[in-house]
């Protein structure tokens, strides 16, 4: 029985993928220009607008198969062409059904169906064309790759094979067809490099330059010009010359280079990119059948991997929970913010002023007691706007507008008509309390007072105000413009209107907000400090720095512990560690070595060339109870599990999902760990340390 038939009977008898949004396949004859004959033009359209893009589930694939049956039976066609609906070509497989898949045979059927249907496009008796009119990802790119020729619109915002980002491989022909089309080196950029670089996407023009498309046309009459081009190809007026993919040593070298880069990033922590590498390596000499069969195997294995299930869970968190924060009050309670005050003129204040001005487009006033510092702070923000202008990120008019929005004032009187004031002054309770009192003396009773503190108690900061209910924590991550997480802290007396306003502002700032309780260091810093603390303690005890730093490599974190320490700044890390030690003396130690290191004034243990600075290493030496890598890792992840359990019990966040979201967006912890709790569950660490799982089986793991 063919896979198509198997699926047909499966769908007839079971309620599989019941919520599939079916992509319909419309076939219409078009008379090609230049007398080139009749083409069957296939339109992929799920019937919704561009906010719900076309995807391929089993029902949609069967519809495509039906359409191809219809087309293949015709003897009068000169060509077959595929295009999408307005603004969208197709964005790949519908993965909604994956979490329900429980056995490998079922998983294998997904890969086989895609191959069986898509490959027909490349095996028709007449030439096939893909007209990539809009966003194309994953299976959307692959259906185009199966066609004999491709055009792309210069207006396409995204062409990508994001599978490795989620924990899959482009398994409907991508790993075989793409390197054979454009060579291994370029293909690996698309299949591996981009997905592992925060899922970077190509624009239409870049896809064309890489050779993924044979021709590019402007969006205004893309379809007409694509059809004309197809006619020219058919009549021989246009010959498509593609550079021959280098099948010699360059192919192997490209795979080796990519493998080195993947290893440097993941240290074996996630299987998908390694499978993709193997597939691309094999595509050099494999036949089409062999290549596709290898993809089927890889897909089946990966679909049955916990890493993919965690990846899908993580992706879902970033797409859904990040946009609708759990526990946020009704957004109708939010008050409008028409002017913003920033207390302070330091680096953080400057970054905040720029962010608020760019996203809210309302006046932002910075204050400082010192004219020199104030001028410097405003100048910094204005300078950053100049950089945006130079890079073409904003127009001259926009730059003019933003600069005019950001001003400085020595007096807090300038805040009188502000609706939102955020402080970014020295991290000390008395200073912050004083600043808030001064601001409160000037502003109206409903003005929200936000603090960017990373470790102090927001409730205590608010306690001496006349209106403590207006105070909220607004904890950004550095660099403020880049990292997407914002921890919104509800203090003891914060009221719903204030909190709703904070969430509304956070959303306008294009940040993903997570509601956290006013607890020491909130979520990300609390967990990272605990994690780092265990590694540092191991070093204090005598574990060599290199061993400790390598110990957690297999998690595939964005950076090693000592690199993180360097990025955060040893002094800041020490300060947070001390704060947490004060709060939780039993669990948070302050490393004596770290204290010495901070005293030495060094920026970090790594030299600019990423070699370990021997003098720094010296400061972290000593101790007589060294641990192995394995022991350090175990102790670090167990500590994290313990801390998460305590945080959940304390109600710091409402659910483990929020912990994971914070770690993904604020610390860059990877999808294949699902943030962190899916990893702790699947390795048994959660069970061992806390006596139970964080998430039910199947939520972010195999059921």
């Amino acid at each position: 029985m063919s896979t198509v038939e198997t699926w047909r009977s499966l769908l007839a008898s079971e309620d599989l993928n019941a919520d599939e949004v079916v992509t319909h396949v419309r076939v219409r004859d078009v008379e090609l220009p230049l007398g080139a004959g009749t083409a069957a033009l296939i339109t992929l359209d799920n019937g919704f607008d561009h906010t719900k893009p076309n995807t391929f589930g089993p029902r949609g694939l069967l519809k495509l198969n039906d359409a191809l049956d219809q087309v293949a039976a015709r003897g009068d066609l000169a060509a077959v062409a595929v295009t999408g609906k307005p603004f969208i070509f197709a964005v790949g497989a519908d993965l909604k059904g994956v979490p329900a898949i429980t056995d490998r045979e079922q998983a294998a059927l997904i890969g086989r169906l895609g191959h069986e249907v898509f490959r027909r496009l490349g095996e028709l008796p007449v030439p096939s064309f893909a007209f990539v009119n809009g966003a194309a990802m994953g299976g959307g790119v692959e259906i185009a790759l199966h066609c004999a020729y491709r055009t792309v619109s210069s207006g396409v915002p995204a062409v990508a094979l994001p599978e490795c980002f989620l924990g899959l491989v482009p398994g409907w022909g991508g790993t075989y067809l793409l390197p054979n089309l454009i060579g291994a080196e370029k293909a690996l950029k698309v299949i591996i490099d981009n997905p592992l670089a925060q899922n970077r996407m190509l624009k239409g023009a870049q896809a064309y330059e890489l050779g993924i498309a044979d021709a590019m046309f402007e969006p205004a009459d893309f379809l007409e010009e694509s059809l004309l081009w197809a006619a020219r190809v058919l009549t021989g007026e246009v010959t498509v010359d593609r550079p021959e993919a280098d099948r010699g040593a360059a192919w192997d070298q490209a795979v080796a280079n990519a493998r080195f880069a993947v290893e440097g990033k993941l240290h074996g922590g996630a299987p998908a990119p390694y499978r993709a590498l193997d597939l691309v390596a094999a595509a050099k000499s494999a036949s089409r059948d062999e290549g596709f069969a290898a993809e089927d195997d890889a897909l089946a294995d990966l679909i049955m991997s916990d890493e993919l299930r965690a990846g899908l869970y993580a992706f879902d968190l970033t797409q859904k929970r990040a946009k609708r924060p759990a526990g946020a009050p009704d957004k109708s309670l939010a008050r409008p913010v028409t002017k913003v005050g920033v207390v302070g003129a330091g680096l953080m204040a400057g970054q905040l002023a720029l962010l608020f001005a760019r996203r809210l487009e309302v006046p932002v006033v910075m204050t400082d007691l010192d004219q020199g510092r104030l001028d410097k702070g405003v100048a910094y923000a204005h300078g950053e706007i100049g950089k945006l202008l130079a890079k073409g990120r904003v127009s001259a008019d926009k730059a003019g507008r933003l600069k005019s929005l950001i001003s400085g004032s020595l007096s807090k009187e300038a805040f009188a008509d502000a609706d939102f004031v955020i402080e970014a002054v020295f991290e000390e309770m008395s200073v912050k309390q004083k600043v808030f009192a001064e601001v409160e003396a000037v502003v109206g009773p409903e003005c929200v007072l936000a603090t960017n503190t990373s470790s102090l108690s927001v409730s205590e900061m608010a306690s001496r105000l006349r209106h403590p209910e207006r105070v909220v924590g607004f904890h950004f991550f550095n660099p403020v413009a880049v990292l997407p997480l914002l921890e919104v802290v509800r203090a003891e007396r914060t009221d719903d209107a204030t909190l709703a306003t904070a969430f509304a502002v956070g959303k306008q700032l294009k940040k993903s907000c997570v509601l956290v309780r006013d607890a020491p260091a909130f979520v990300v810093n609390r967990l990272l400090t605990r994690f780092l603390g265990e590694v540092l303690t191991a070093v204090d005890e005598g574990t060599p720095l290199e061993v400790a730093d390598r110990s957690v490599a297999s998690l595939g974190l964005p950076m090693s512990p000592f690199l993180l320490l360097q990025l955060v700044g040893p002094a800041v890390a020490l300060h947070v560690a001390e704060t947490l030690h004060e709060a939780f003396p039993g669990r948070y130690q302050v490393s004596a070595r770290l204290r010495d290191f901070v005293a030495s004034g060094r920026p970090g243990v790594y030299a600019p060339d990423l070699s370990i600075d021997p003098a720094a290493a010296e400061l972290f030496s000593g101790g007589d109870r060294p641990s192995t890598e394995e022991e350090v890792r175990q102790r670090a992840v167990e500590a994290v599990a313990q801390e998460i359990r305590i945080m959940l019990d304390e109600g710091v966040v409402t659910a483990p999902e929020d912990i994971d979201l914070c770690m993904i967006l604020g610390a860059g912890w990877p999808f294949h760990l699902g943030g962190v709790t899916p990893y702790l569950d699947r390795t048994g660490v959660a069970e061992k340390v806390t006596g139970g799982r964080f998430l039910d089986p199947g939520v972010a793991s195999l059921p």
Partner: protein
Amino acid sequence: MPRIARDVVFVDGVRTPFGKAGPKGVYAETRADDLVVRAIRELMRRNPALPPERVDEVSVAATTQSGDQGLTIGRSAAVLAGLPKSVPGFAIDRMCAGAMTAVTTTASGIAFGAYDVVIAGGVEHMGRHPMGEGVDPNPRFLAEKLVDPSALVMGMTAENLHDRFPQITKERADAYAVRSQEKYAAARAAGRISPDLVPTAVRSAEKGYGLATADEPPRPGTTLEDLAPLKTPFRVHGNVTAGNAAGLNDGATACLLAAEDVAAELGLNARMRLVDFAFAGVEPEVMGVGPVPATEKLLARNSLTMDEIGLIEINEAFAVQVLAFLEHFKIADTDPRVNPWGGAIAVGHPLASSGVRLMNQLSRLFEERPDVRYGLTTMCVGMGMGGTVLWENTTYEGAK
């Protein structure tokens, strides 16, 4: 400073295939502005010698100027077509003579020296914008008997024309209509229609994307017997039927005009030269007779007689209106100078776009007929008007 009027030439013109208006028409789910944008882009593509920034104006006509035909469509179409933002544009309206007026207005600007090169055209999506959409006639029209109640219904004005010219019978009108279909079919078969057409993408939620490559309205093979029994919706026992009138249609046109010296400088081919134009008003209830006084005025001013006109492209809103024109100028119903490739009865009449279709076709005819010096494009206009443009063939080699 004394001014010298400059000669204006018609360089090139294109149009989308015309479609039938309504939910079953080929453009039912396609926007009007997309149609005219496609025409403008193709016009630019066909004339690569013209630097886009040299276009000084984009004038696009539409009778209904709201929705996708609103937003001062000449300008919005210019932006959507990807012309430089420095190129201005405007919308213009004289109902059926919209595109014709876009041409005469911008050509006047060229002659005056204010423009060097312009794009003029029109669009009407009568499916998305039915005739009379949103109109609110002043009650004084009827209260003070300024116009007859029939004046606002074009089919009724055509019936009125049969009253004024009783010798124009329904049979004559039907015979004229059959010939229009025949002439169009012959011209199409000879490959004379498609060079002006811009294949245009269409989309339907049900059928997916498609490509309009040919006019949808023509009914080749129409016979007198087919037409005889058709209903006369505008008057019981009347004369005007769907068969001897243009239908309700969707389509867009665009043409390129330039000062003759600028065309030469840029290496643009001048197909015909604008000699003069005239518009004239008539009683709105017999608007179909409008081309007569407009043409009389034009010929008199240029000291020409109808005998000196070698080709006439007259819009066929109604057969009776063409026949009234021919009667007046004592031209035979079958005179080969008149609409040699058929007219709007066959090809369709998307109101404001048609003027440029007439010009496209005349310019192609001129290319085939170097023995003809002068040609007319003329049309009747709602609210009682006619417009006529006199053109000179740039390939004229002298009478043979």
